[in-house]
């Protein structure tokens, strides 16, 4: 794998993530029903995967013919950040992005296979890791050099199907699979540590299941990048990302209603201001 550690540009990542968040906020003023909170908690992770971890093809694109790596958004409700980034990378057109949740549009709230840049349909939780593992296994047994990246929600890690995939991934040595858990400790019905105290520790559970696992600050792009680049690589790899739902906007952070609410014009202005000033 191309080692870009020496050229990692943390300032550029920070600037991009600000721009992504503002682009999402702009969309909230055109359509409602966006998962803003979950998109903001996964912003640095998805940005890091697309901009710094996935290797481009000859045309400089991380998706399409000849692009070796794959990203699958297992937490489909984080689609907004993925769509914004795909648009920024020139993979998803403005026309497609602007058709978000409109009658004639191509994209809705969750990713659909077949849309440019989308490798699998997700939205129902607990499906993504199995598919990502199957993809990684296929690539590996086809003799190709390709890494499959996926981002899961902490809620998804409660699905039994996720643990089925965790078990078989390590049993079959799927070491080209990199999973990240956007662990914002929040679910639709409360805080994860309150409803599921036994959910923690996360890293130990994955280690016990035969994975290489670490925990980093999920809003520290360089920490995410370094964790992936420094993995041993002989096992499937997971990062438990400690994140904040609604990260970057004070009134959204860790407030459950921002799972699905769009800000009004005053709230929007405040959010833009806070992100600019951060």
């Amino acid at each position, binding site marked *: 794998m191309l080692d870009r550690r020496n050229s990692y540009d943390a300032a550029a990542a920070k600037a991009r993530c600000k721009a992504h968040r503002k682009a999402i906020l702009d969309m909230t003023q055109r359509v409602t029903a966006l998962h803003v909170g979950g998109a903001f908690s996964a912003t640095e992770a998805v940005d890091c995967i697309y901009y710094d971890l996935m290797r481009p093809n000859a045309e400089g694109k991380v998706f399409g013919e000849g692009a070796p790596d794959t990203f699958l958004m297992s937490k489909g409700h984080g689609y907004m950040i993925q769509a914004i980034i795909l648009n920024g990378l020139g993979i998803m057109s403005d026309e497609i992005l602007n058709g978000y949740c409109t009658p004639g549009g191509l994209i809705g709230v969750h990713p659909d296979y077949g849309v440019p840049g989308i490798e699998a349909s997700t939205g129902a939780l607990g499906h993504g890791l199995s598919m990502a*593992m*199957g993809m990684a296994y*296929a*690539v590996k047994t086809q003799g190709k050099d390709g890494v499959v990246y996926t981002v899961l929600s902490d809620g998804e890690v409660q699905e039994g199907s996720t643990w089925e995939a965790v078990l078989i991934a390590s049993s079959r040595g799927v070491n080209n699979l990199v999973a990240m858990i956007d662990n914002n400790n929040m679910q639709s019905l409360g805080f994860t540590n309150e409803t599921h105290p036994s959910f923690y520790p996360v890293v130990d559970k994955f280690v016990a299941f035969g994975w290489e696992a670490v925990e980093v600050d999920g809003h520290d792009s360089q920490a995410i990048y370094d964790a992936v680049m420094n993995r041993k690589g002989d096992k499937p790899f997971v990062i438990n990302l400690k994140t904040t739902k609604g990260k970057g906007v004070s009134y959204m952070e860790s407030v459950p209603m921002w799972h699905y609410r769009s800000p009004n014009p005053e709230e929007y202005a405040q959010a833009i201001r806070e992100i600019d000033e951060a």
Partner: protein
Amino acid sequence: MRNTFSKALYECATEDPSIYIVVADISPAGSMAEFQKDHPDRFINVGVAEQVMIGMAAGLALKGCQPFAYTIATFTLYRPFEMVRDDLCYQNLPVTIVGMGSGVIYSTLGGTHHTMEDIAVASAIPNMRVIAPCDPLECIEATRYCAKQKDGPIYLRIGKAGEPNLTENAVDPWEFGKIRYLQKGADVCILSHGVIMKQAVEVARELEAKGKSVSIVSCHTVKPLDRPGIEAALSNHGEVLVVEEHVPEGGLASRVKQIAWDIQAKCKLHTFTLQDEFIHNYGNHDDLLAAHGISVPAILKAVG
């Protein structure tokens, strides 16, 4: 039939390196053991973990493989239902899920091991196709078809062991999406699919002994059903029987009734299906079918 399936798939996989099989702790009967030995990378036993069996098969297909997922029918379709629906059907991936020992074949294992309503469940999902071969020869044809097709997901509903070959002298070749006359007659037409075809053939022999001229039809592709073929069968015979190892709703019997109404068919139409009931009977397969009201004498009595 499972050994026939295993052998046919092994042969296909030997020719085509894109064929993978993901199984959930099913015994490696027949050629399945050879598949595992000769192509260890392409034989994946996920253990008792049916959701990842389907999800992984989807992931393989998304990277260009031609996967089969294989275990006992109830665990192929019911346990991982949302994966079948979302991962395979919604994304329309060329994955074949093989339900072995379908219907009430596992008679003594009880209701947890029966698939009495699997055709209804599978057929209800957009993009899903359903194939139920009636004998080992049809199972070979169906497996080869599934191994090559790229159109989307298929539920391949097969038997278990000991089924006789019934189609050596069939009038028509096996063709996906077409009903197939095993023999052509003028008076009575028996429509069936799956391993219960054996009883259908016995009924035909008894009717022939009474002087009737009988057609026997394998409706191996239950979805998409060959509507023109069914219409012709209803129009060209005075009496039509549907014999099906499936509950009354959502299988071949109810579809044939719909078509008969649509075309205002003039024939007599009798349907013989499993009851809409969990029946506790721990005899053999035929005993349990008889408890549901499907036996050669029961059918002959009803037809008169």
